[in-house]
Every structure is written in structure tokens, then in C-alpha cells.
């Protein structure tokens, strides 16, 4: 099992960022993740979301600051663990006043609940390209179970091997007590988390 820690010294937009990733080989995956060091590429990691509203364009945004750990060992699932700690104040939808509204007490209440946390409780291999994470999501201090299927793809191209991870899921914000604006603002929030790791 390869294990390593990535701690870039300087990042765009002065993001606080610390990620670590570890893999065991996905034995049957094409170009399997061999037992070597893999670095998550912070510039290619996005924690994005989308929310619908009545008579309003779909709002797309992402969280710019987070910490994450990805340890996947399919031979020893108990050793696998994925965790993300997202700074709720780092929400960015492309408008500073819209960001302020999202950070406010009405929605993310970032001063009271500075992080949104996901921590896996189990990791299951579905096939050569997919794993299922089962875990807990904590938002506004409320914890609910969340299952996420993660696509794992090798990126074509020469040089160092790179793998892409994409996870899509939908959460019901009302379950976490985020009721403001409902039903004009949709109950469902789509989450799209993508990341890329390269052999270092």
C-alpha cells in the first residue's frame, strides 16, 4: 500500500489545502494504481454543487478551501478511508454578494458551522472503475449517512500516470435543517466532487 502526504507550499488564491492520498493496487483495473506515491492535484480538485430554484437559473458553485484524505485499499477494505473537511465560508458561486448570502445564517451559517465534513465508514469496490463510499455527512452540525459512488478513470496520455476521481450525489438540504427559501430554492442539492491524482 502506497501512502503519501501532499502539502503544497503555495497555492492559487492562498487556499488552505492539505490532502493525502494512498492506494493499494486496483488489481484488475486497467493501468492499475500501482503501489507507488500519488499526489492529488489541487488545481484539478473541485468540490462543486448545483441547486435549482423556481424562475431562476440553476446556481452552480464550489468550495475553494478544504482538506481531504483519500486512502483506498481494496484488498483490505477496513484500511480504506475517505474524509473531506470543507470550509463553508469558501463557497464561491461567482458573485461576492451571492457568496455572502450563502454564507449567512439563512443557509450555510458559516460563522457557527465553519466546516462541512464527510467521513467514510466503509469503502466497497463495485467494479474496475467504481467504488462505493458509505459514510456520514455533517452539515449545519447535523449528521446524516451518505452513500457516494466514485468513478475512477485513468487519464490517457504519456508520461506519468494520472487518475481521475468523480463522485456525484444529491443531498436533501431539509434533512440538515437548511430550510431557508424552500420551496422556491430546491430541496435537493447536487454535489459533484472531482479530483485528480498523479504518480509522483
Amino acid at each position: 500500500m502506497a501512502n503519501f502526504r501532499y502539502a503544497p507550499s503555495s497555492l492559487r488564491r492562498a487556499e488552505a489545502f492539505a490532502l493525502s492520498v494512498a492506494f493499494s493496487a486496483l488489481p484488475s483495473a486497467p493501468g492499475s494504481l500501482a503501489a507507488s506515491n500519488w499526489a492529488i492535484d489541487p488545481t484539478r480538485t473541485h468540490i462543486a454543487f448545483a441547486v435549482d430554484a423556481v424562475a431562476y437559473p440553476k446556481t452552480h458553485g464550489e468550495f475553494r478551501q478544504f482538506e481531504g484524505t483519500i486512502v483506498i485499499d481494496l484488498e483490505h477494505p477496513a484500511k480504506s478511508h475517505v474524509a473531506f473537511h470543507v470550509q463553508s465560508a469558501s463557497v464561491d458561486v461567482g458573485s461576492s454578494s451571492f457568496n455572502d448570502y450563502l454564507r449567512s445564517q439563512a443557509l450555510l451559517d458559516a460563522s457557527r458551522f465553519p466546516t462541512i465534513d464527510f467521513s467514510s465508514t466503509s469503502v466497497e469496490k463495485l467494479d474496475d472503475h467504481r467504488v462505493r463510499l458509505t459514510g456520514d455527512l455533517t452539515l449545519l452540525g447535523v449528521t446524516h449517512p451518505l452513500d457516494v459512488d466514485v468513478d475512477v478513470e485513468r487519464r490517457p496520455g504519456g508520461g506519468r500516470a494520472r487518475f481521475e476521481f468523480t463522485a456525484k450525489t444529491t443531498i436533501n438540504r431539509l434533512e440538515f435543517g437548511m430550510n431557508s427559501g424552500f420551496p422556491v430554492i430546491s430541496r435537493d442539492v447536487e454535489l459533484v466532487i472531482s479530483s485528480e491524482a498523479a504518480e509522483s
Partner: protein
Amino acid sequence: MTLASEKPAERWSAAVVVLHWIGAALILGLLELGWFMVHAETDAARRFDLYQLHKSLGFLALAVLSVRLAARWATRAPAQPSSMPRWERRAASLAHGGLYAASLFAILSGWFVVSAAVVAIPTRFFDLVVVPDLPGVGPAQFDAAATSHLVAVWLLAGVIALHIAAAVKHRFVDRDGVWSRMARWPGRG
């Protein structure tokens, strides 16, 4: 103060002229922006900013209108030309009153919409100060608020169209000086 013994002014006071044109620009801008922000294909962030700008400009228009009404009250209005038939003079007075009333109705109904919105986004007046919502207003009144704003805005647009048509008639048909006492920079011949 208008005193009965004083002769009517030759032209509008400088304050009224300047506030008329600032108010005109604001109100036409608000009508255009209101239409655009609702109907244009924009992304969510841009639309959010347009709505916030519309709210800030609306409250600026309220401030300008308040000062203008005070200036209108405190200064003498020019007499209407004696060449105007009686009914026209009466219609002009009614239309001017209608412009003030419809402007105020449009702005206050906008405040009503903001206060009743289900998605309660605070009104930050140009990011300087938060304008409070109208007291006692909630989402239950949103439909009434939205309808009243729409009615007010179309009413205002109608009175503005009439006002512009009348001004153009004074300029090109009547040539009675009514146009130039508002359309020329105050103080110039």
C-alpha cells in the same frame, strides 16, 4: 414656499430640473434593468447581482424622489402657458401628479416585494447599509406584492409614455417654451 402674492416663476428651479433628470435616468434605468434581470438569459450569479443592483437603485430613486418632492414643494412652479387650453392644463397637472404617485407606488411596491420574498435576501444598499424589510410583511403576501409591483410598473410606464409624448408635442407642435424650461440647463437663456 409658494406665496400667493408672488408671480409664478418663468422656469423650474435648478433643483427641480436637476432632480427631474436624475430621477428620469434612475426610473428609466430601473424599468430597463427590471425587465432585463427577469427575462435575459443570465447565469445565477449575474442575475443575483442584477437583482441586488435593482434593489439599491430603487432605494436611491426613493431618496431622489423624496428630495424632489421637497424641492417641488419649497420652490415656485412656473405657470402653464396661457396658450394651453384649460383641459390641457388640467390634464398636465393630473399627469404630473400621476408621475409622482406612480413612481412612489412602483418603488414602495418593490419594497413590498423584497419584504415578502420567500427567499429573504437582505437589501444591502450599495453594500453600505442594510435596508430593513417593511414591518409585518411575510411570504403570505408575496403574490399580492408581486402583482402590485407589476401593476405599478406598467402604470408608471404608461404615464411616462404620455409625459414624453406631451413634452415632444410642446417642443415640436406647440413651441410654447414648456419643453425648454425643463430641457435646458438651468440658468441658461
